[in-house]
């Protein structure tokens, strides 16, 4: 195509010249033809040479591009190999974390027991002054492809002696089908929303009154838990726990049947992008034999033998604009405890009902800063027969109101100031707390 065009152009240039000379001889015409033919051959040769060079160049370019692509892939491969530490949750196996939880307390008289309630363990306002509190050490990792294991122990100074508290040691299945999970060992019961949170994850310095009155802070199970998540789009979960341990409200016994049972159910979901909620209902049924109150190792007061039935209703609602809690978020939570005990106390007939509840709201008003309000209250109706014992009807409810402000410059540290108007005893008390919570090591879990 290009060749014939060239020829036409050449002819077009040549023709007017030929026409201008009327005396053109036949020899000249032949000569011109010869010249044109030679020129055409020459151009054809040079053009095909150029085309061949173009082809080669194009091929070389393609090869170079492919080589470059391959080199890039190879370099990428090497870099991936090098950067591949995999995305396992544990950089270290097991993951190790420690939480330091201590602070300063200013309290008037304070209390260690709630009127009308058998003290369920280490409860109360604590003492004035500075305390390094508790150091919690946690180890966790997959055991193998079937189990996940977790150990937590706490170190605390108990009147000059270092006390090691064995908080948790459990193994959980990860390979059971159809939504089932079984856990065994020592673990925090699922009866109550707050119960299986560690203390340092609470939004206030101390546990709400019902937790202190009914659980001694928290309910620990030595035994087995089985739970099932339904295959639904709303969360529906049910579970049970068998407890052979002696943790309040149960007592340890030498029998092969467990001393306490738990049943629990949870329902939860989202409302739009900004709201999520969970409702829980649980029941703890315990057989108590000679259950005494008081602090660990000290036996004081009367002993209870009989049935203890506790029902807990809990809810939590969380809000964040479009589900993004970074700047602002709000959490409202409340729980209602109702217990009925039937048997003998200090060898007297005892049929008592107690109840308690708390309601709290925590508002993150700016990044890092949160403010919270809580009201908690417990009531005992133990009947007239127990006058003179520690379960004597107090004739009033014990209640408190608290306000807290905390600041968390990172996910790993928190400072908190809390004021409590304490009316657990007849005489009201003002309590101030300044708390620090620092976590080192493994990244904590973002629980709901």
């Amino acid at each position, binding site marked *: 195509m290009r060749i014939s065009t060239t020829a036409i152009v050449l002819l077009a240039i040549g023709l007017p010249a030929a026409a201008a000379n009327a005396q053109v001889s036949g020899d000249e015409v032949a000569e011109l033809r010869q010249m044109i033919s030679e020129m055409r051959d020459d151009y054809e040769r040079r053009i095909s040479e150029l085309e061949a060079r173009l082809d080669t160049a194009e091929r070389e370019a393609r090869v170079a591009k492919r080589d470059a692509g391959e080199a890039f892939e190879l370099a990428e491969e090497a870099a991936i190999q090098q*950067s591949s530490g995999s*995305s396992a949750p544990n950089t270290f196996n097991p993951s190790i974390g420690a939480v330091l939880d201590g602070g300063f307390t200013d309290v008037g008289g304070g209390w260690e027991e709630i009127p009308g309630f058998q003290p369920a363990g280490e409860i109360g306002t604590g003492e004035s002054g500075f305390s390094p509190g508790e150091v919690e050490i946690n180890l966790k990792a997959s055991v193998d492809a079937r189990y996940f294991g977790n150990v937590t122990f706490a170190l605390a100074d108990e009147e000059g002696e270092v006390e090691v508290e064995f908080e948790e040691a459990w193994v959980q299945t990860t390979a059971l089908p159809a939504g089932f999970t079984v856990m065994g060992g020592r673990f925090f019961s699922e009866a109550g929303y707050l119960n299986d949170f560690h203390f340092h994850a609470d939004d206030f310095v101390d546990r709400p009154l019902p937790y202190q009155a009914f659980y001694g802070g928290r309910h620990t199970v030595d035994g087995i838990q089985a739970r099932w*998540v339904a*295959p*639904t*789009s709303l969360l529906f979960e049910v579970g049970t726990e068998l407890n052979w341990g002696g943790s309040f409200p149960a007592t340890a016994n030498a029998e092969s049947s467990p001393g306490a049972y738990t049943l629990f159910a949870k329902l939860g979901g989202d409302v739009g992008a900004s709201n999520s909620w969970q409702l829980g209902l649980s029941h703890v049924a315990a057989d108590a034999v000679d259950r005494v109150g008081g602090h660990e190792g000290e036996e004081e007061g009367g002993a209870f033998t009989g049935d203890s039935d506790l029902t807990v209703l809990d809810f939590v609602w969380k809000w964040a604009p479009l589900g993004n809690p970074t700047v602002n978020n709000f959490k409202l939570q409340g729980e209602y405890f109702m217990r009925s005990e039937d048997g003998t106390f200090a060898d007297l007939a005892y049929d008592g009902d107690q109840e308690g509840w708390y309601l709290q709201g925590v508002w993150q008003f700016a*990044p890092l800063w949160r403010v919270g309000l809580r009201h908690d209250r417990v009531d005992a109706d133990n009947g007239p027969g127990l006058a003179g014992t520690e379960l004597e009807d107090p004739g009033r409810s014990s209640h408190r109101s608290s306000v807290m402000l905390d600041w968390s410059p990172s996910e790993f540290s928190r400072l908190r100031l809390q004021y409590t108007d304490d009316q657990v005893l007849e005489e009201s008390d003002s309590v101030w707390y300044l708390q620090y919570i620092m976590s080192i090591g493994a990244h904590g879990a973002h629980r709901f």
Partner: protein
Amino acid sequence: MTRFIAVLVALWLPVSASALNVFSCEPEWAALIGELAGDNVEITQATTAFQDPHMLQARPSLIAGARNADLLICTGADLEIGWLPLLLRRSGNPEIQPGSPGYFMAADYVRRIEIPASIDRSQGDVHPQGNPHIHLHPRNIERVAEALADRLAELDPANAASYRANADDFLQRWSDARERWEERAMPLAGMRLVSHHRSFSYLADWLDLDIVATLEPKPGIPPSGAQLSKLLEQLTPAPPAGIIRAQFENERPAHWLSDRLSIPVIEMAFTVGGSEQATDLFSLYEHTIATLEEYRE
């Protein structure tokens, strides 16, 4: 009352019986699954473009979603460290536990950058496995797409041919688009920007953008007034072209600095759904480049 019960029952009914139920931690992977599997899958998406995937909680709806999943696709590299391990343990679903075919971590298949030489929390919430915000480099998308197609084929052999064909088609369209974007974005090279968090490091790596500073003094630590004042002083002699932010990042520090330096805050889509235009991976990239072009000096 009967109507209320009927509604409850409807909500409880098992999620529809598609070939595969997929739980996706981030919108970009949900979009990629859409490209490779089309209508063959039912996708539960844990986060939107307006939520920080690091800050999520293992909330009830996510536990329910994970319970029903055949495949879990997340970024990995510790991005979801705060909630994913807990979510998996609560789900009671053995199919998506670490090590199972149903557990897919995208960051395992790409070249990660900004891998710290040492790990100490005094440097902020640094990820030992490098920067996890990998999806704004098109080569990473290619890598993940290839690996994901293989994984889908493994989990659902009946549709393996269709996943592979979709992947080939997607990869062809994607590499054509990538070449187009690279050509088009040449003038963006060297564009000086400030970002809130290191959310755009891979984009900067790809397009040769110059992220001169981050508002956060350290990864995951919100900027303080003092930090912002220092930045203002540092950037005043040569203000950058703008401050880029993802939709879930706090806008106030960006606006504070933008007012004082008289430079714009550039609202980036960051991921699929982060702007009206970014409806899939292609339009996310188109829109990202178009946004930057708009503010080029």
